[in-house]
């Protein structure tokens, strides 16, 4: 279970996040919405340890992991999938996956590890020997997911999984995430586009200029027209209520 308490963070001297709090329970999918520059990526990076928060706390299963390096967090069960479908371009698909599993105490054999995710993304199995840079953006995103999946994290942070992906490939990716949560993993997903991930989310929050200004269940937010207004930068006075 992931808990973020009163987090303040930024990069260099630039303050970005102000007093952000949220919680994600095992099996839950929580969506972080917000426009460009709102601070969504900064939030995930601050939780994962790429950025050290200036104030506040990040708790993993009750343990304070604030500011811990990403490597240690990954080994303790908190994994971030970076935005931009980043994988290791010169390594093969199978080596990429293998590296994902490297942190497990008992790696087992490749097939038992990866079988499940390869069944879901057959294209990866077909390209097992290809270098990752020869894959399309969407396939690389699948590979990034597979790489994280075999590590069996308890908490997964996913930064804009749909960015730069062909429309057709987005639903299988989201479905995969939904099933993954179903296995008891706590999922925190950042998404730019309002419609895309609300379908699979349980709850959602909206970040505006570094602070959470709206939150609720996915259904509530789907119908709330204020969400759109926030995205369009319409000032509070202009907002439809």
């Amino acid at each position, binding site marked *: 279970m992931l808990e973020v308490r009163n987090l303040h963070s930024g990069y260099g001297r630039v303050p970005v996040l102000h007093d952000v709090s949220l919680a994600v329970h095992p099996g839950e999918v929580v969506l972080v919405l917000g426009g460009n520059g709102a601070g969504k990526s900064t939030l995930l990076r601050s939780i994962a340890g790429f950025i050290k928060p200036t104030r506040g706390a990040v708790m993993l299963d009750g343990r304070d992991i604030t500011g811990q390096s*990403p490597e240690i967090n990954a080994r303790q069960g908190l994994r*971030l999938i970076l935005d931009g479908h*980043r994988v*290791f371009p010169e*390594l093969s698909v199978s080596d990429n996956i293998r*590296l994902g599993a*490297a*942190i497990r105490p008992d790696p087992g054999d490749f097939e038992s590890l990866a079988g499940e995710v390869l069944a879901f993304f057959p294209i990866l199995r077909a390209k097992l020997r290809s270098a990752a840079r020869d894959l399309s953006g969407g396939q690389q995103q699948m590979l990034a997911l597979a*790489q994280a999946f075999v*590590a069996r994290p308890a908490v997964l942070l996913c930064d804009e999984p749909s960015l730069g992906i062909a429309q057709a490939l987005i639903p299988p990716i989201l479905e995969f995430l939904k099933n993954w949560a179903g296995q008891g993993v706590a999922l925190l997903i950042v998404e730019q586009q309002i419609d895309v991930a609300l379908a699979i989310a349980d709850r959602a929050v909206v970040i505006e200029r570094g602070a959470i200004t709206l939150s609720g269940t996915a259904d509530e937010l789907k119908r709330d027209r204020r969400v759109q207004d926030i995205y369009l930068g319409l000032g509070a006075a202009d907002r439809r209520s």
Partner: protein
Amino acid sequence: MDELIIILVRGIGLGAVFSLVAMSFNVVHNASGILNFAQGNMLILGGLFGFFTLPQEPELVRWLLLVPAAALFYAAVLAVQGWVTLLPLRSSVEQHSWLITTLAVSVIIGAVILIAQGPFALSVKSPFPNFALLGTRTPTPYALAVVLAVAWYAALHWFHTRTVTGLAISAIAQDLEAAQAAGIRVRRLQILAFAISGAIVGSAGFVAAPVMSISADSGIIYVLNGFIAAVIGGLGSNAGALIGGPLVGVASMYAAFQYGGQYQNVVSLALLIGVLMVRPEGLFGRTRARRV
């Protein structure tokens, strides 16, 4: 014609030593963006290892056993140097301290050699007789250096493509953040990279000792030529190092033959400036340098 063959053969042999230095640069640079200036003097130390451990009468078995011994010994030494070099980079804003700390270590090693052994070059006797090649008599260490260079190239290639640890180091070079996100212990592997570079230069110094100039002063020559070899081939590429080394070696030998030994380094310098002005990324270069 004979002379040209000698130049070619010895140039390639000498170049193989440069290739080994270049490969040791690459390992560390790929993992951390650091260029370890002390590699040249570490090579000399490898030669000294030979000086102290080889018996008067050459014995093949003993020699064979000492090669991995030298490699292991200097792997340890460089792991320590790596740890020291990486220490200030953890927290301070000074992200280029490695430039000075590696240079300082190089200076210290040179000074210690000077005090312990004096300023004159030491010679190590080759445990093998000269062999005949294309009508010339060539000291065997030249050929051994070539064999070692190819062997290390193959070993590194195997390491980086077939072992999980090697894959992880390769991953750090390709995308540092993604590697961190995947839980790869970057610092630890960077120290391992230093250790591997130590194994390379340690074994190289030991094997090539009979044909090397082993003195307090010569480390800088090897580090510069090794750097030029790395740059020509493309910093970060071991295939490039394998090609760049002999290029520099042959040019160096030719300069010595044509103009005299004192001009070898001028030619190397000219090569360096030429490459940097015309094509700084070298033959196979990746232009990205890893952040520490």
